[in-house]
C-alpha cells in the first residue's frame, strides 16, 4: 500500500513540478521579496527628514513649543532651543515645551506573525486549488476506474495528498528559505522589510511555520479531496469547494484579529478549521495544544475516510446516494 501511495504521490508531484511555468512562478516570490528589500533599504546615512517646530499662542499669553515626531534633536537639545527662544525670541510670552506623545511602536513579532499568516494562507489556498484539480481530473479524464482497479481509494487519497503536499511544501520552503536567506544578508537597520525579515532568521520560527503549514494542509487537503471526490466535473468542484474557501477566508480574518489581541477567541483553537492558524497567532499552553491537535487529527481522519469512501463511487454520487452511507457512519459512531 505504501509503495502505491508513493507511486501516485510521485506522479502528482511530477505533474506539477516538472513544468517550466511552475519554476518561473516559484522564482517570482523570492525575487519580489528581494526587490522590496532593496527598495526600502536605508543607506549608512539616514535620508534628510522633514521635521518641524510649531509655536502656538496660548490663552494666558504663553507660547507652547511642539516638536514634530522624529525631530533631529535630543531632549537636552530641545530644552536648549526653548531656552534660546525665551531669551532672544520676539514672542508674546514665555515659551513652554509641550509634552511629547510617545511614538506608537509596532511589535516586530506581531509583524512577523502577520507575514507568516499571509504566506501560509496564500500558499495553502493555491495548493488546495491544485489538489482539487488533481482529484477532479481523474474523474473528468475518465481515468478513475483504471486507477481504482490497480490501487485502493485510500492509496489514491493519500497519494494525491502527499504529491500535491510535496509541491506545496516546496513552494512554502522556497518562501521561508528565501526569507531566511535575505534576513541573513540584509542589515538589521536596513528598512521596514529588512526588520520584518529578521524574525525569519530564527530556526524555531521556521520550524513552527512548517509545522503549522503541514497541519493546515493535512486537514484542509483531506477535506478538499473529499469535496473533489464528490464532484462530477470542474464546475461542480468549484461550486462544492466554495464554502470551504469561504471558511478559509473567515479563518484568515479571525487569525488576524486574534494576533491584534482581540479577546474571547481562545476557544477557536479547538475548532479544527481554526486550529493551525490560532496556534500560529496566539501561543497556547501545552495542554491546549495537545487537545486541539487531537481534535484536528480526528477531523482529518474523518475527512480521509469520507474521501476514500466517496472516491470509490462511480459515477460521482448525488446527495441521496450518500444518505445510507452516512446513516451507516452514524451507526458506527454510536457503537464507538
Amino acid at each position, binding site marked *: 500500500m505504501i509503495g502505491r501511495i508513493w507511486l501516485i504521490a510521485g*506522479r502528482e508531484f511530477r*505533474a506539477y513540478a516538472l513544468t517550466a511555468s511552475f519554476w518561473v512562478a516559484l522564482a517570482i516570490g523570492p525575487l519580489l521579496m528581494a526587490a522590496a528589500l532593496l527598495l526600502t533599504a536605508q543607506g549608512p546615512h539616514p535620508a534628510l527628514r522633514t521635521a518641524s517646530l510649531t509655536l502656538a499662542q496660548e490663552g494666558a499669553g504663553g507660547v507652547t513649543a511642539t516638536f514634530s515626531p522624529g525631530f533631529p534633536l535630543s531632549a537636552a537639545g530641545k530644552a536648549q532651543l526653548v531656552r534660546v527662544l525665551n531669551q532672544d525670541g520676539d514672542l508674546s510670552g514665555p515659551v513652554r515645551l509641550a509634552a511629547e506623545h510617545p511614538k506608537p511602536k509596532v511589535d516586530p513579532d506581531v509583524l512577523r506573525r502577520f507575514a507568516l499568516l499571509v504566506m501560509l494562507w496564500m500558499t495553502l489556498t493555491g495548493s488546495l486549488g491544485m489538489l482539487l484539480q488533481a482529484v477532479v481530473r481523474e474523474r473528468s*479524464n475518465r481515468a478513475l476506474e*483504471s486507477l481504482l482497479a*490497480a490501487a*485502493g481509494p485510500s492509496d489514491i487519497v493519500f497519494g494525491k495528498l502527499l504529491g500535491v503536499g510535496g509541491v506545496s511544501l516546496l513552494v512554502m520552503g522556497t518562501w521561508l528559505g528565501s526569507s531566511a536567506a535575505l534576513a541573513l544578508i540584509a542589515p538589521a537597520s536596513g528598512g521596514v522589510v529588512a526588520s520584518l525579515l529578521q524574525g525569519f532568521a530564527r530556526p524555531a520560527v521556521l520550524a513552527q511555520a512548517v509545522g503549522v503549514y503541514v497541519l493546515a494542509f493535512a486537514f484542509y487537503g483531506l477535506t478538499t479531496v473529499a469535496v473533489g471526490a464528490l464532484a462530477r466535473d470542474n464546475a461542480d468542484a468549484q461550486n462544492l469547494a466554495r464554502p470551504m474557501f469561504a471558511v478559509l477566508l473567515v479563518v484568515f480574518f479571525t487569525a488576524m484579529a486574534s494576533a491584534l489581541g482581540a479577546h474571547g477567541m481562545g476557544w477557536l483553537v479547538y475548532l479544527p478549521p481554526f486550529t493551525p492558524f490560532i496556534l500560529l497567532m496566539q501561543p497556547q499552553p501545552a495542554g491546549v495544544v495537545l487537545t486541539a491537535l487531537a481534535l484536528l487529527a480526528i477531523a482529518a481522519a474523518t475527512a480521509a475516510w469520507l474521501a476514500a469512501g466517496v472516491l*470509490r463511487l*462511480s459515477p460521482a454520487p448525488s446527495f441521496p446516494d450518500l444518505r445510507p452511507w452516512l446513516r451507516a457512519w452514524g451507526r458506527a459512531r454510536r457503537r464507538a
Partner: protein
Amino acid sequence: MESPATSDVLQVRDLKKRFRGGGGVDAVSMSVRAGSVTGFIGVNGAGKSTTLRCILGLIQPDAGEIRLFGGAADGASRRRVGFLPEERGLFPRERAREAIAFHARLKGMAKRDALKAADRLLERIGLAGRERARIEELSKGNAQRVQILCALAHAPDLLILDEPLSGLDPVAQSEILSLFAEFRGGGGAILFSTHSMSAAETLSDRVVMLADGRTVFEGPLADASASAPHGAVVVTSDAEGLLVAARAVGGAIQPMPGRIGEATRWRVVLPREVTHPALMRALAEGAVPIFAFEPIKADLEAAFWDLAAPAAAAARRRAA
C-alpha cells in the same frame, strides 16, 4: 449451465448487486477458464459492467461469491488481473511510456521491468518512436492503444476488457486482436464484454450471455450457435394466416419489433427437421401475403435473440 472446472481462473456464483433507482444484477454465475477467451454478451443495461466492476472490487456485491485463481478475490489476486474499462481515459500530460510503466508498477512490477515492458509493448504496436509523446499529443486511436497496453504491461494472468474494440479503426482493431492472441498464446485468459455479436464470434471460444441481470447461457461458442433456433423472419399483414401455416408444419410464431405499413415482422421458429421450403409451401397453400421472407442463420446472434431477448423484453415490460 456448466459446472466449475478446476482450471477456472475466475468463478462467479449467484452474484447480486442492486442500485438505488434500479439496475444491477440479480443472479449472475459464470466462469473463465485458463487460456480461454470468454465473450460476455448482453444488451446495454444487462449488467455486464456491474458484474465486471464487482469482480474487480470496484463495487461491493450485495450477495454471491467471486473466486479468482482458485481463491478468494482479494488485493493480491486482483493484482494478477489487467483491466480495460469501458470509459477510457489517461492523464493527458503523462508520457506514453510513463503511463504504461505507472500502471504496471501499481500492480507490483519493479520500475526497471515496468519500463522494459512499456518499451517492448510500444514497439509491438508500432509506437516505438513515440514513447516520449504525451497522451494529449497522440491520436485518439493511439491513446486507446496505450490504454490497452496499460492493462497488459504487468503480464496479468487474466485480462478483463469492457468493450475493448469500441472506438478503434479496423487497423487498430486488428493490431489489438493480434496482441490479445499473443497474450492468450502465452497462457493468459481473457474475459471481454461486448454487445457486438460479430466481435464475440470472432474473438471468443466460450460465451456467457446476460439478460436482465441474469446469466441465460454459459458454454462453448459452438454450443451457443448450435442452440440457435431454426426458422425465418416473415413480414406479413395476415398474422392469423401465418399462425395457421406455422402450426401446420409444427412451428410457432413470435412478434418482432418494427412494422412495415400494414405488415408486421414475425419470427417463425421451426422444428429442426422442417425445411424453409416446407414453410413456404404452407404459406402458399394458405394464401398468406408475404412481403419478406428471411431465413434465420443459426449463429450467435440468433442464439442470443432466442435466449436473451425474452428476458430483456420482460424487463422492458416491467419497467414500462
